[in-house]
């Protein structure tokens, strides 16, 4: 942790991202929560305290839409990340620890899934299950899971052959005990790094699907969806397109930097020669 805090870039990224996340949580509670009522008399209102980012073509407050949209983009991605990492860790650990047929099935499934563009997976899951926020985050989670499983599996495999695992087995400890006490202690840093990188990828996936008008449907202000909605105004009101874009880019960049910082801090021996 100390090493992470000494990394100035990662620390700055963490602070910026936390501020972004907090503002998305706090501002809707402070009264900026009405994102859908129309005021056609107030199109493109001048910047004021009431409308810090002006208003859009239908007179809706743009700042409110950004903040509420952040709740959807960042929140849904967080849900799908938690799902992906949770199930990915369980499946990856079991597959690596048990080996055999289960392992082979999991590996080949992951290979097949990771060769397909994730948009295809999300679409097929959404078409098959239904179109809603819950299914949407589940779909992103499933699309992100193969890479999580592969990473965790590799990490567990490298731990499994260590002497202390054999020693624990000789002592007659149960598999559950070995996995929770010994294996998890050694792969938790991998899981943490994987969590961060999956979160970044999920935000990208969420906004891309929103942009392609496949994800969350229109009145809900999801950032990627907002880019698509205001795209026809790019020449006259460029900020309506560029602000959501900027927010997506900044949050994903911050997460990438946090991921890199965490990786360097938790796994110094692999990256020290850089």
């Amino acid at each position, binding site marked *: 942790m100390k090493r992470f805090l000494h990394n100035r870039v990662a620390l700055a990224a963490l602070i910026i991202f936390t501020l972004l996340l907090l503002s998305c949580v706090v501002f809707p509670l402070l009264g900026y929560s009405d994102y859908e009522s129309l005021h056609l008399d107030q199109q493109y209102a001048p910047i004021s305290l009431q409308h810090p980012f002006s208003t859009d073509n239908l007179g809706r407050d743009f700042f409110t839409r950004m903040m509420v949209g952040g709740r959807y983009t960042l929140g849904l991605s967080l849900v799908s990340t938690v799902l992906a990492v949770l199930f990915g860790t369980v499946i990856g650990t079991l597959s690596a620890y048990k080996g055999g047929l289960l392992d082979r099935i999991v590996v080949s499934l992951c290979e097949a899934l990771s060769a397909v563009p994730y948009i295809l997976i999300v679409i097929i899951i959404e078409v098959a299950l239904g179109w809603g926020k819950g299914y949407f985050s589940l779909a992103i989670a499933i699309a992100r899971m193969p890479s999580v499983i592969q990473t965790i599996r590799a990490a567990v495999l490298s731990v499994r052959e260590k002497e202390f695992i054999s020693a624990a087995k000789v002592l007659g400890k149960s598999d559950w005990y070995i996995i929770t006490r010994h294996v998890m202690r050694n792969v938790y840093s991998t899981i943490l790094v994987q969590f961060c990188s999956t979160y970044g990828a999920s935000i990208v996936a969420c906004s891309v699907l929103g942009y392609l008008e496949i994800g969350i449907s229109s009145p809900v202000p999801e950032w990627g969806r907002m880019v698509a909605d205001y795209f026809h105004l790019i020449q006259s009101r460029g900020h309506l397109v560029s602000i959501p874009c900027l927010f997506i*880019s900044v949050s994903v960049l911050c997460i990438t930097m946090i991921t*890199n910082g965490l990786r360097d801090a938790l796994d110094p021996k692999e990256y020290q020669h850089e």
Partner: protein
Amino acid sequence: MFKFIRNRILGAIGVLFAAVFAVFTILTYLPGSRLRYLPIQGENDLLDRYFALIKASPNLLTRYLRYMYNIITRFHFTSNFRHHDLSAEILTRTRLTLLLTVLGFVFIVVFGIILGVIAAHKRGTWIDRLISGASMFLASIPPFCLAIYLALIFCLGLKLLPVFGYAKPVNFILPTVTVSAAALANVIQICRFQVIEELNKPYVRNLQSRGQRESVILFRHALKNALIPTVSVIREMTATIFMSTFIAEWFYAIPGIGYYMIKAINSRDYGVILACTVVIAIFIIIFNIISDVVYCLLDPKMRSKEMGYSQDV
């Protein structure tokens, strides 16, 4: 080597059939169809009977095999859901997508390797920091954000390039950049890392002390060894590149497969979704086989396996 490639091709074809079968099954048993929205009044009974017919007979496997047979022998995309022939449309759109993807791949290979080598050669200087920073930026932002930044800068700001259209070669500059950005950034990072690894090895110092020119050391010795992991990264990025192709087509309004598919998804046109899935799966498999062949040609271990002896005995 040939054995390895043959196995890969057979495996890929197996995966193709399995994947298409899965999608075929899911799309067949889905509720809802475009036909429901046709202005047929009071004839729901007829539609129900039609649906019962296409769902029940002949059985799923037979219909699936017939579907694949038509595609393989005549490139003929039938649709259970919309009774007209999709082949002509798929074919014209496939050309555009293929063009865009191949351009993207060429761009990635050429610029990824050149920039990676430059960054490694000038490591620690501002050039290296610039290239690494830019590649980190490109690797993390979603492709459509990049497309919008590019459009804002080059089309609206500098008025250099056109935003839309696909008739002239100029139109393909921005889409190519958009398609390749994410994968390019990854290739640069890996290439830089690997070349630096190679330059730290003793044989490079030996070459330097013999007075070998820097460019020869970089390109003929270090890059040659660094290429193998780089190619494997490109192979892993295939899915990402196709993903970016979808987005670039959608953004720049290029009527390729990706554009067609997104339109089809928004209008729940399952026959088109299935056809596009098949085409994209074939694309991915072809690109994977090509990169496998390149990989084999580059990796001496693979070549020696073919010759009948192995070094790691």
